């Protein structure tokens, strides 16, 4: 009981500290805006994201098309809102995959040690032999283009940080007296991992997941830009930029606005991630 009240007190203190961090609050507001825009996209705009109107192509912003129209006369505002759905979906599912696989690997590797530890960590080393984006690109190259494969590829490429973080958290906690006590009263391994080890590792994981979300959205947009991700006419930010690029001398809006959407999403997620890190790790708050 005492432990749980201590935790809630820590948590509310942490949230207070987070709210005092202007950067984190601004980031959270922007992200919330994008998320709401994505969720309620059909209610916000009447324009269908893939409805073409060639006669009205490459127009600048107007009261009808808030952000102008693209090379097929499609409404850019509507496409960006709907594209937000894809970006958030790709981000959350790929980070979810990385968290689930990497987290489980780190948890078991750290707790059991020995052969499993060696096996999992060597696997992680191999994943780290290529920089994340290149690894994701190579995986998509072998699985074939498509949004599902992009999610899998980015998920796999993001396994290493989660596995390593979880493993080192486990190694720290494992030696503590209350874990030994829990072993002594006969708790099962699963109970110890879930009740004692996991709660202690959760803070750094939250920070990692937030920053990972930003990276995943950026990578997914990059892969789609290269033609490996969402295929036209799907409204995906990276692919919108790639498709509108040949028309840039006529109209830059179809390139500029999706890029700004990626930029602000990634920037605000990074701001929230930085703020969380400062709030969760008091040691780093005065340096970064």
């Amino acid at each position: 009981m005492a432990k749980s009240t201590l935790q809630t007190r820590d948590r509310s203190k942490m949230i207070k500290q987070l709210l005092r961090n202007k950067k984190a609050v601004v980031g959270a507001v922007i992200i919330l805006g994008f998320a709401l825009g994505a969720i309620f996209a059909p209610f916000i705009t009447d324009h269908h994201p893939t409805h073409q109107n060639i006669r009205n192509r490459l127009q600048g912003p107007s009261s009808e098309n808030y952000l102008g129209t693209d090379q097929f006369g499609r409404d850019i505002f509507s496409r960006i809102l709907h594209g937000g759905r894809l970006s958030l979906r790709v981000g959350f599912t790929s980070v979810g995959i990385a968290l689930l696989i990497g987290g489980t690997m780190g948890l078991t590797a750290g707790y059991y040690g020995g052969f499993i530890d060696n096996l999992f960590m060597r696997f992680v080393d191999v994943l780290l032999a290529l920089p994340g984006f290149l690894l994701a690109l190579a995986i998509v190259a072998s699985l074939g283009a498509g949004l599902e494969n992009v999610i899998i590829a980015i998920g796999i490429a993001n396994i290493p940080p989660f596995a390593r973080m979880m493993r080192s958290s486990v190694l720290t906690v494992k030696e503590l007296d209350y874990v030994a006590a829990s072993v002594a009263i006969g708790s099962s391994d699963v109970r110890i991992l879930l009740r004692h080890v996991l709660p202690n590792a959760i803070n750094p994981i939250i920070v990692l997941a937030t920053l990972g979300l930003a990276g995943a959205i950026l990578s997914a947009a990059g892969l789609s830009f290269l033609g490996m991700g969402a295929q036209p006419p799907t409204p995906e930010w990276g692919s919108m930029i790639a498709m509108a690029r040949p028309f840039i001398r006529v109209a830059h809006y179809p390139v500029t606005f999706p890029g700004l959407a990626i930029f602000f999403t990634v920037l605000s997620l990074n701001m929230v991630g930085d703020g969380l890190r400062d709030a969760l790790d008091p040691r780093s708050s005065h340096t970064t």
Partner: protein
Amino acid sequence: MLIPVLIGISIFAFLMIHLTPGDPARLMLGEGAPTEQLEALRTRMGLDQPLPVQYVTWLGSALQLDFGRSLRSNKPVILELRERLPATIELALAAVAIALAIGIPVGVISAVKPNSIFDNVAMVGALAGVGMPPFWQGIMLILIFSVSLGWLPSSGRMGGVEYIILPAITLGTAATASVARMTRSTMLEVLSQDYIRTARSKGLSRGRVIIRHALRNALIPVITIVGLQFGFLMAGAVLTETIFAWPGIGRMMVEAINAKDFPIVQGTIMMFAVMYAFINLVVDIAYAFLDPRLRTQYN
């Protein structure tokens, strides 16, 4: 440590062809290819052998830098790599030069005047630099400096310095941001140390203490970041080279993936992995050399 990792990535590079759904020979030649041609390609690439045999044969030649021949140009992969590699290295070095030339001074000034206007603007800028999609930034730079102002060429690598400026800025932005952030945080840590106060109290000027005492020590972790950034630079090179039609191995990899030219894809992946491993090794050695505490261990 290095060798098992490279073996692991080589297995992956080798398996790429087989992970792809469908018959590799048919994928490469197209749907309508006649059976004799398919058979010929299978024999040529050894696709009729069992997988482990294929892998050992492939690895054996790869160790002798023989990755087979490009399916499009029919030139040996290693020759194509050798042709394209200098462009990528040139671009990466230019990007690192920008990152160091801008990132370190900005980080130092931010750390010396923490929470000043300069510091706040610089750190928001650094965060923005990390979040900037390089492919979009590249297009925006082309739009401004090539299309509107006409100052710089929008693509290619014709030899002149003007060709590398935009690609290097695009590729170097994220690295500059990371170097600035890292320099700031290590400088802040070093500046709070006792020996800095000692140096100041024995009458040395503020500038001298910052440059001679603080910066030298603060730069050691920055080296690790620069090493790490080389990895991100290689990844960024794929996008940057594609936008600026820069003839490096990043663009070569994308073209090969689109054309299903698997020997080239495998070759570029192995090339990137070896370069990455080599850079990490150099960073480790540089670290040991620069940190006096580690240096005495080795002497």
